[in-house]
């Protein structure tokens, strides 16, 4: 497989998964179990993505400037600071720690 094959195959598969959700009957979304699963799956995936994005590295698991940045973001979210300001603050914290360490 060339990189192009990989890029196209993966892209088409991911797009097909999105469209599949539109193809099934709308009544599925109203079933309590499906609705609960959709909610909880989102929570689980987002939570795992936070962890992976915070600690992920080519060596597996790594604690670095991202952790304090995300901690600052958590405090700001708890204080109801608007999303975009929190994102900028997180980037600044990580960039500052890396610049001075």
């Amino acid at each position: 497989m060339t990189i192009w094959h990989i890029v196209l195959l993966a892209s088409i598969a991911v797009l097909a998964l999105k469209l599949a959700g539109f193809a099934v009957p709308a009544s599925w979304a109203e079933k309590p179990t499906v609705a609960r699963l959709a909610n909880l799956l989102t929570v689980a995936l987002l939570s795992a993505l936070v962890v992976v994005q915070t600690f992920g590295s080519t060596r597996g698991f790594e604690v670095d400037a991202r952790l304090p940045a995300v901690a600052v973001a958590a405090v700001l979210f708890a204080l109801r600071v608007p999303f975009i300001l929190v994102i900028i603050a997180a980037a600044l914290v990580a960039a500052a720690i890396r610049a001075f360490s």
Partner: protein
Amino acid sequence: MTREPRTQPPEVTAAIRSSFAVGLAVAAYGISFGGLSVAAGLDVWQTCVLSLLMFSGGSQFALVGVLATGGAAAGGAAIASAVLLGTRNSLYALRVAPMIGPGRLKRLLAGHWTIDESTAVAAAQPTLESQRAGFWWTGLIIYVGWNLTTLIGALIGDQLGDVSRYGLDAAAAAAFLGLLWPRLKQLQPITVAVGAAVVAAVLMPVLPAGVPVLAAALVAVVVGLTNLFGTRESDIAEAEPDPMGER
């Protein structure tokens, strides 16, 4: 549905405001994706095709992440990671489809734009009209913005060097946290979030990129099917995400 020609309902105005706040924040870290993708060995065209066609940040990061370490030889694992990360979009589509209504082309475009953020913004709105506004505006802003920033990131990737120097990796983590935060109002989702985080953290050192996230999703399946730590069904409708977390 009836629509006032001049005055826009305040819910719709609020939905569009949310769309811009979420959309611009998320689109900005397309620079990070563009840079990382080029650093992983993809060319500018391949990087842009991913953002144009796949258009799902988590899947895109997973794909180039695996390719960065394994190259084209790791193509199978790269595709699997991207696809399995993309399965959540099917569930988002299930949620979004009733808001979109009929029309083949409209549903095709809506399907393409069904991602974390468009779904979260839409689901947070109180009326059907504001849900639609939230979905389409967030989708449009992120699609245009994400593709532009991907191109910029890919083009200046070499000059930029290590994108982490600018804290873009931390910004991405904070963005995921921001989407998660407003969903953590009840015991059941909090339990699932903690469980998923622990599972992902424990498995990260031993499993390939993308797989720990999928394993973490099993926590949701187990808790969801058994309704562990659950509340009455009527409460579930009120557990909609509020992507801004500020209202």
